[in-house]
Every structure is written in C-alpha cells, then in structure tokens.
C-alpha cells in the first residue's frame, strides 16, 4: 500500500519528471485522425522528480487525507508520501536546518494522521492544511529557541543551527525557486516584497519585522496586508 515514486508509472509533460515526448498535445484543427488512439509510450521512470502534488491532483490528495481519517494506518502511507514533502519544504523554509526540519516534519505528519478528521476540504486543500501546520510548528520552534538563547546570552554561537533569523532578501530568490508564488512575487513593490519575505522566511512577528526593517509597525502591517492581497490576486486564490 505505498505510492512511493518507484511504484508509479508516469508519463507527462515537464514538471512531473517525464520528458516532453510523453506529453500529448492535440489542438483543434489537427488532422481528422485525432480521435484515434494516441500512441504514447508509457515507461517506468526510476524517479519522479516531484510527486504530482498541489496543482495537478488536489482532489486526489484531499480525498486521500480524508480517507485516512477512517482509522486504518495503512491508508496513511500514501498521505505521507504525497504530503511529507510539503511538510518538510514548509519547515525548511523557516528553519533552514535539515535536522530541525526533519524533526518538525515527523511531528507534523504524526499530527496530520492524528487530526485527519479535522481536515475540511471545503476550506482549503490538504496541501495548504499541512503546510499551515508545518509552518506553525516551525515558527514555534524558532521562537522557543530564540527565547532560550535570549535567556542564556552566552550561548549565542551557531551551534543550534537556528541562529540566522535575519533574512537576506537576495538569498530568497534561490529559495523561492520552484514555489508557486515565484512568478507573482515580482508584482509586489520592493517594500511589500521585503516585508512579506522577511516575515515568511524569518518566522518573525510584525513587531520583529518592523525592528529589522527599521519601519513603523503600522507601515509593516499594511505592507504585508497589501503584499498578500496582491499575491492572492496573482495566484487566483478565491474562496466562495
């Protein structure tokens, strides 16, 4: 009962690890034989670069998560396989340290199993649900680590791996690579972009963002609000 990458035969356009020869592109106006069977080679791929999570199979993933609320641990395996990378990616965004991110991912994925019945597909996708849970835990970890270090001023070296809460905006370009939001982030004003990016990757509160950017608190609030509104519109996110 696994859907590990090795178990799947995948053909597809770029993005699912297949080469372009796998994709089927028919256009109106092609020759009349279009209704005949299309010859497509279906090959076993050794590795699926990224599972078809998120954009292409939201309903499938939502249904998998909903199904595992029925109490069968075996039904959680496919959920782990498709949503584990979401939890790990979201954790890594905040924590940067692979070991910390792995610990958070483990906690989050057990929580996903434990609370699967609370997932409500009418309010958002399974992917968003898991990313939200993971980010929250990652931010909690950053803050408790920060609090611990604030208490112990001598322990300010880099040994924890959670040292750098300052976000270098230039570094973000690389980390955004592959994220759905990448093409939209360019549409923000520089100050909106800076505030959103610092809040997201730093796991910072509004107050901390204001301190780091040397801006007034209300200014930071409105920059983040306006920034997220623009991203929402660019991404086409619209509920109800």
């Amino acid at each position, binding site marked *: *009962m696994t859907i590990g990458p090795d178990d799947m035969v995948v053909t*597809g356009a770029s993005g699912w690890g297949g080469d372009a020869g796998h994709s089927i592109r028919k256009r109106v106006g092609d020759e009349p034989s279009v209704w005949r069977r299309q010859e497509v080679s279906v090959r076993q791929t050794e590795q699926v670069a990224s599972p078809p999570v998120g954009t292409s199979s939201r*309903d499938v993933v939502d*249904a998998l998560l909903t199904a595992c*609320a029925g109490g069968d641990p075996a039904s959680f395996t496919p959920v782990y396989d498709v949503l584990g990378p979401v939890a790990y990616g979201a954790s890594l965004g905040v924590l940067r340290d692979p070991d910390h991110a792995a610990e958070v991912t483990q906690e989050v994925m057990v929580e996903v199993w434990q609370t699967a019945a609370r997932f409500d597909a009418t309010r958002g996708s399974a992917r968003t649900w898991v990313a939200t849970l993971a*980010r929250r835990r990652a931010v909690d970890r950053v803050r408790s680590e920060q609090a611990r270090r604030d208490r112990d001023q001598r322990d300010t070296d880099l040994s924890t791996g959670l040292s750098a809460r300052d976000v270098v905006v230039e570094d973000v370009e690389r980390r955004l690579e592959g994220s759905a939001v990448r093409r939209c982030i360019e549409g923000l004003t520089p100050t909106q972009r800076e505030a959103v990016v610092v809040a997201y990757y730093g796991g910072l509160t509004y107050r901390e963002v204001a301190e780091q950017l040397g801006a007034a608190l209300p200014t930071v609030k409105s920059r983040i609000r306006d920034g997220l509104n623009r991203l929402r519109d660019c991404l086409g996110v619209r509920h109800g």
Partner: protein
Amino acid sequence: MADETNGGVRSDLWDLLPGYALDALDDQDRRAVDRLLESDAAARRALDEYREVVASFAVETAPPAELRANVLERVLSTPQVSGQGAADVSGAPAQQDDRRAGPAASSDRGPTTGDAGNVVELAGRRRPRRWGLAVAAVAAIVVPTTIAVQATAERDRLREQGEIVSEMLADPEASILHGDVAGGGEASVLVADGDMLFRAEGLPEPDQGRAYQLWVVAEDGSVSSAGLLGLRDGGTTTSLVRGADGVGLAVSVEPEAGSEQPTTDPVVVLST
C-alpha cells in the same frame, strides 16, 4: 479591544488576518483574531485565502528517507481524534454557514466541493444527459438538509472516492497522463485497472450554450460519453470514471445538452 461592534476595531482586526496566516501576530492580537474568526464566516474565508497564499511559498522537498519508517511506525501506535475537536488549524469546521447551501448546487458551478466526487458508472455512458441528471439529483437532496449534514455527506463522498483513489494509486500498473488543453488549461488522468480519475484546471468557460464533454477512448479508437464536465473556480473539474473499457480519455466542446458522439475535435486526448 474585542468589541467587534466598533467598526474601526473590526476593520483593524481584518487587517491582522494576513499576519495571522503568517503566524506573525503576538499573543494578544492572535486571541483577538480568534474571536473574530469564531463569529465571522467571511473572515474565516479571507483567512483561508491568505493561508493558501502563504502555503504557496513552500517548495516541496523530499524529506530524509529514514523519516518515513519513523512516522509510519508512530502512526501505528497513535490514536486518532474525532472531527469534533475545537482547536483546529482550519478554524471551526463544524460551522460551515459560510458555504453556499443547496440552491447554489443547481447553478452551473455546482456544490462547493460536491462535484469533486462525481462518479460516472459507465453502464449508462451512452446517454449523455446522465451527468446532468445526477447533478440535479444531488441538488434535490442537498436543498432541504442542514449545512452540517451537507458537509458530512461531502466528507463521506470524498472518503469513498479516496478509498477508490487510494487503491488506484497503490496499483503498481497505475499510470498518470498529462497534457495541455487546446484553448487553455491542463488535464491529467490517473489510470489504474479500468478506473480513470480525470482532472483538469485552468479551463476557460465554454461559449454560451456549449459545455465540456468527457469521452472514454477505446482501444479501437471509438469513443463513448462519460458525461459533461462542470467547472469550478479556477476552471477546475474532476471526474472519476469507473469500470471504463478504454485506453484513455478525451474532452471536446459540445452543445450544452451533450452529444451522442463528439461533433468537434478534442481539446485534449490523454491515452495510454
């Protein structure tokens, strides 16, 4: 502070929703927003949107391989909680008063997630109107029920579909086909042992009086209808075709009543 009858305070609280989605609020602000969310369905919906935006920053990354066995082992010994719990990252799932209820189900957009679970039994696939009748039947059931019941029904349906899809995904022979749709959008189909899960997104609204129709493509190139496709937000549509004696699926734009056989060239063909 929490007096939400004051318009200014209310508006200030709404301004905190992006920060709530980013986990960027201090405790006091977060509690104030929690109270807003309990009472205001529109605020919950706005939060859901912001959460989706924030989640779009996450870049899916394969976790360390050893994590898998650890998690699956812990799952074996971890009991699940029921869905009635209050502390939920999604807010208050039991209070779905913000969802459009029954009457909307008969509109062209269909129930909010109900059409995620459309299952077309192919016994009747040569009757193109079957799809429309099935949707009408769902609407008739939904209208007089409470919203809580509707949410439960949707969940049951998703769960049932999830079990089917789970089996499909577990099939080592399963394949996924993916292609662009002429005119806009992308489509994919998961094929496993006669069952096919079709999904498309980014489809433009068809012209007035036209509709997307799904077809099962047989080995010999013949096609039979698997019903009309209803579009949801973002031009997404999903259909689970069970027991299909076919090698793939195709979509064409047809008169809105559906056609016995395709009358136009397909906008996409996905076939093994």
